[in-house]
């Protein structure tokens, strides 16, 4: 089934932390660590965060100062865009072309933001915090969950975890330079591959999802040599959205009518 995490009927967590902070249930660490989404988020954070070493080292080698390197990881916080930015700078490109390359690569984060806003509905300052933490890994962790609470835990764990470790290891890489070696040597790029496959896997149960995955894989492979990095993912996103919009499943009319009076149009539409 192509479904977003479903909201439990009473949405117990929707009130938490809003009107009645005194009654908010704060799960303790044991409870949190028992959450599959938190554990997935932590593994993703370690695998991705360590990659900050290569960014830091490469950025320093490109001629950026320690402060400039740290600023990129703190402010831009999107691995692909950061590598693109320093790549253009190292190649002698202008600041404008470095910014454009990074911005193009970061466009998918806008699509992610739309999806996460719908899924997690953050409010107030949390919206801005969630926006800054919106990257491939946090989105993948959140959307791979089948319950809303788990999706939230997964997003914040992966987002904050990657943010902290990515910035720490950026500094480590910038200070140590090439001395720590290539993370690929330790198979860290293989860890990233496995993490994304592991997040995709549970979503491939239906034939429809399988068909969409195959179509998107083909589009991505075809687009990689033709388009700038980052754009193939956008192409796949467009293809997936179009396929999702077109394939209208046979649905009894009363089931569709039932949804309309729902005061909070649910996330359970695909269920």
């Amino acid at each position, binding site marked *: 089934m192509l479904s977003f995490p479903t909201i439990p009927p009473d949405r117990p967590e929707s009130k938490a932390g809003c009107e009645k902070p005194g009654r908010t249930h704060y799960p303790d660490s044991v409870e949190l660590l028992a959450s599959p989404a938190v554990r997935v988020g932590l593994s993703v954070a370690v695998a991705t965060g360590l990659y900050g070493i290569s960014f830091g080292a490469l950025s320093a080698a490109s001629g950026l100062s320690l402060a400039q390197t740290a600023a990129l990881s703190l402010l831009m916080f999107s691995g692909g865009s950061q590598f693109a930015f320093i790549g253009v700078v190292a190649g002698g490109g202008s600041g404008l072309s470095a910014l454009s390359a990074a911005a193009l690569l970061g466009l998918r984060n806008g699509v992610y933001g739309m999806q996460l806003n719908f899924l997690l509905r953050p409010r107030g300052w949390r919206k801005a915090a969630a926006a800054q933490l919106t990257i491939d890994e946090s989105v993948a962790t959140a959307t791979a969950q089948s319950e809303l609470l788990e999706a939230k835990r997964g997003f914040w764990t992966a987002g904050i975890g990657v943010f902290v470790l990515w910035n720490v290891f950026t500094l480590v890489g910038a200070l140590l330079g090439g001395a720590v070696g290539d993370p690929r040597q*330790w198979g860290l*790029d293989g860890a990233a591959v496995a993490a994304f496959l592991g997040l995709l896997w549970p979503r491939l149960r239906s034939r429809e999802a399988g068909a969409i995955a195959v179509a998107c894989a083909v589009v991505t492979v075809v687009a990689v040599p033709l388009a700038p990095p980052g754009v*193939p993912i956008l192409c796949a996103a467009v293809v997936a959205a179009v396929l999702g919009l077109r394939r209208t499943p046979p649905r009894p009319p009363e089931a569709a009518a039932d949804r309309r009076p729902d005061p909070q149009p649910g996330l359970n539409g695909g269920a």
Partner: protein
Amino acid sequence: MVLWSWILAAGFVSFATKLAGYLVPARILGNPRMLRAAGALTVGLLTSLTVVTTVSSGSVLVPDARLAAAAAAAVALWLRAPFLVVVAAGALAAAAARMAGLP
């Protein structure tokens, strides 16, 4: 100094792009048809991310040790291994494949 201003501008553009997505009203996506599209989008994005991290290097398709990582992860997933084991299997397979001489 000039580079600094481009770094700050690029950081702002990155954040603004992310935030723009959050400013799309959620209710626009709240009908069953859009939900199906969003579900499909998730599958499409995860698939594309998996493919990109497995076979691409910049704008070039590079078959290398990461394919071994994908295969090992698939086997682990097939055996219903926990997520952490899947990630570790991917890392070990890539590291082993490189030691065996793959790029």
